[in-house]
């Protein structure tokens, strides 16, 4: 038992943090103010990352590295899932909005990684993929989506409207969740990779948001959009036994990544707050928490919560790396990291007073950015539902 990162992951984390310092922080405020402008500086970052990913044998920063390791390996692995978490943390210490719009590093890539067959993985390699799940009438209950896919020869015809598609106006591919047969329930929900420019797919709106403004959030409509059947990810059969498992499995992989984003943002706020407060506080990790100044106690509590979130995230990723089912732990990590990050970033603004609330510092931005991390990829409440069902051994019909 040992809960420290191996050297190679520490190096990776440092690299991501350095990259954040040099390339993300300097443009962080610029794209927070210029919502909907594409941060062209990221093209350089993305190609650097491609190089890193290829060179490091998978120990990259990007979300597309998050593959469930199933093969038996001698000994314990600290593999691609952990590396992705460490890298993402370092990046989001820089700017989570910019990470979310990094070419070829989208959550859609993780979805492809989780459910695509070998041919598809190969065909979509190097492409930037976005995820389109949410609909105007369907948020957290993603089993209830109403975008339809009707088979017509070698094609599926998609109809419906998707919202909150991160990188939806910038990605090469939109991974769309649609139902083959609404009456057949969850089992009929499949994901389709729709390439940019496919007739019938149209970006109809870009959202104006509270935070992560550097990242575009699109509404996309599908009107008789024809997608070749080879772009259906995974198995085309409606298997009621396996049910929702296929598409939902994506989340076991992506939730630790979103948790890692939260860990990175929270760390940014905590680091900066400690720096701003250094003349006012003395943190020696020795005096009892009830005997120190109130601000010091707040920092200790935030730091403890932050470490807890970080370790839960690493646990979920470590389990994935070592072929252990991690569905509950992934949700635990997402729940804890999401709420800890939001609470920490908001408290940091409070502790830094006017300095924290103003736009001269990034603290107020992080406290806006953090809110989405407790919402997307499954809200706090959805994570708790998943954890509770697991612990109590209840079905979704019993614990609604």
């Amino acid at each position, binding site marked *: *038992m040992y809960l420290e990162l191996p050297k190679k992951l520490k190096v990776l984390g440092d690299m991501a943090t350095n990259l954040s310092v040099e390339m993300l922080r300097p443009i962080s405020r610029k794209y927070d103010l210029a919502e909907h402008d594409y941060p062209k500086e990221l093209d350089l970052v993305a190609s650097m990352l491609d190089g890193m990913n290829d060179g490091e044998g998978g120990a990259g920063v990007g979300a597309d590295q998050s593959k469930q390791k199933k093969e038996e390996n001698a000994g314990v692995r600290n593999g691609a899932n952990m590396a992705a978490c460490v890298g993402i943390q370092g990046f989001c210490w820089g700017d989570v909005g910019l990470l979310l719009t990094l070419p070829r590093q989208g959550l859609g890539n993780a979805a492809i990684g989780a459910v695509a067959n070998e041919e598809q993985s190969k065909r979509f390699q190097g492409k930037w993929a976005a995820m389109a799940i949410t609909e105007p009438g369907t948020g957290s209950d993603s089993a209830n989506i109403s975008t339809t896919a009707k088979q017509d020869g070698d094609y599926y015809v998609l109809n419906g409207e998707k919202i909150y598609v991160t990188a939806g106006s910038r990605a090469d591919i939109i991974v769309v969740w649609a139902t083959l047969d609404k009456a057949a329930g969850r089992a009929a929900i499949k994901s389709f990779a729709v390439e940019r420019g496919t007739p019938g797919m149209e970006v109809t709106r870009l959202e104006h948001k509270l935070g992560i403004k550097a990242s575009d959030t699109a509404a996309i409509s599908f009107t008789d959009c024809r997608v070749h059947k080879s772009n259906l990810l995974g198995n085309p059969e409606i298997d009621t036994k396996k049910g929702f498992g296929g598409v939902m499995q994506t989340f076991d992989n992506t939730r630790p990544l979103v948790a890692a984003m939260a860990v990175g943002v929270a760390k940014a706020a905590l680091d900066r707050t400690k720096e701003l407060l250094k003349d006012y506080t003395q943190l020696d990790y*020795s005096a009892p928490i009830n*005997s120190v100044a109130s601000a010091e106690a707040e920092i200790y509590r935030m730091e403890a919560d932050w470490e807890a979130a970080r370790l839960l995230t690493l646990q979920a990723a470590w389990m994935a790396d070592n072929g252990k089912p991690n569905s509950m732990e992934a949700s635990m990590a997402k729940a804890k990291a999401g709420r800890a990050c939001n609470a920490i970033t908001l408290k940091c603004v409070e502790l830094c007073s006017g300095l924290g609330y103003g736009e001269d510092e990034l603290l107020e931005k992080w406290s806006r950015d953090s809110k989405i991390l407790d919402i997307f990829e499954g809200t706090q409440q959805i994570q708790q539902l998943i954890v509770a069902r697991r612990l109590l051994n209840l079905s979704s019909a019993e614990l609604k």
Partner: protein
Amino acid sequence: MSRDPIGLAMATMSRIASSSLVEKMGLRTTIEKLTYQGTKTGFQALGAASRQFKSVTQLLRPERLEAPAQPKSQFDLTISEEQQMMRDSVRAFATEVLRPAASNSDVECTLSEDLLSQANELGLSYFAVPENLGGAATERSPVTSMLIAEDLAYGDMGLAVAILSSIGVANALTQWGTAAQQSKYLPAFLDENLLQAAIAVNEKRPLFNANQLSTTAQENAGGYVLNGAKTMVPLIDKAELFLVAADLNGKPRVFLVESSTEGVTIALKPNMGVRAANMGDLILEQVSVSKDALLGEDTFDYEAFINMARLGWCSLALGTAQAVLDYVIPYCNERVAFGEPISHRQSVAFMIANIGIELNAMRLMTQRAVALAERGKPFAREAYLARVICADKAMEIGTNGVQLLGGHGFTKEHPVELWYRDLRAIAVMDGGLHL
């Protein structure tokens, strides 16, 4: 300090019967019984009559356990097969022996002789004493100690403390003791009549800070003179040896004090919880100890000593919190209100989810700090943060455990009220254990 009549009688009796004489004349049981009766009613009395400690093996230099050989420095949540076997047997003992005895031990404020001898059969103290002194320890094993503490506390926290108190003293002597201290005391932890001992750090004042002690040690030609009062000391009327934290020239250090040293008095002072641990106050009035009584050399790390206790309490919190979780799950699945099990309501289910999430967090934080300590790396920050999380979340879990059972949880029909009382100790306690 004036003694009450029973205390005075005890003092006289003890003065007549030096400890070795008591042993010889078969009076030990009588004395202990009298001491017990006196303290049970809340009077101050002398500590347990201590045995005559003698060094069978005289070490020339202290035995130190090395950090275990580790193949790789990487993130790894697995435990060894040996640790798993150990866990299985300790967990079985905790569920089959400790849990059924918990309620009675809470009322009686003690670990029965029968339970103690059963616990001794587990041979846990062998893992605290190095091989050269007759034990079985070959390497540092705080991680194993953490797992054992968690599993014992799954049965009952108070009983776990009663069992682990002496082992904690042995661990501390193995980690910090001088050659003379180790030679003198460590073999006694393997005696058939196992040496009972306790670590005394806490003092009775609000906002207690283990770095700023009111108990003092004054150096003189012969050794040190100790003055002060300690509270929440486990096995108070049974311990023959105390490790006492005291301020020496402005810095906290730890002293070995035998219970029958002149000027040592004790009082059983039950707390709201952890009652089976037999906690009480240790009063030191002009207690003269020799130069040898100062624990360790100049390399002694008081902060690490304190943190090894705090991490011990974090480990106990894990076991008790897990007991809460495992208890509320079937309860809430079976308890029907408004026509369906209450677990089908999100307000109930989410409380349980949060117990699971925060307990998992507490466990990872504790494991991280303990694993660093085991490898001999700095762990003060990690221990501090583990304590912060465990102190907050353990109590939250304790109070929600009662809440989930409603009125039933408030009664002694169910163990959750005991766990509630026990878990309040995590944020309060210093000393008492050493992983």
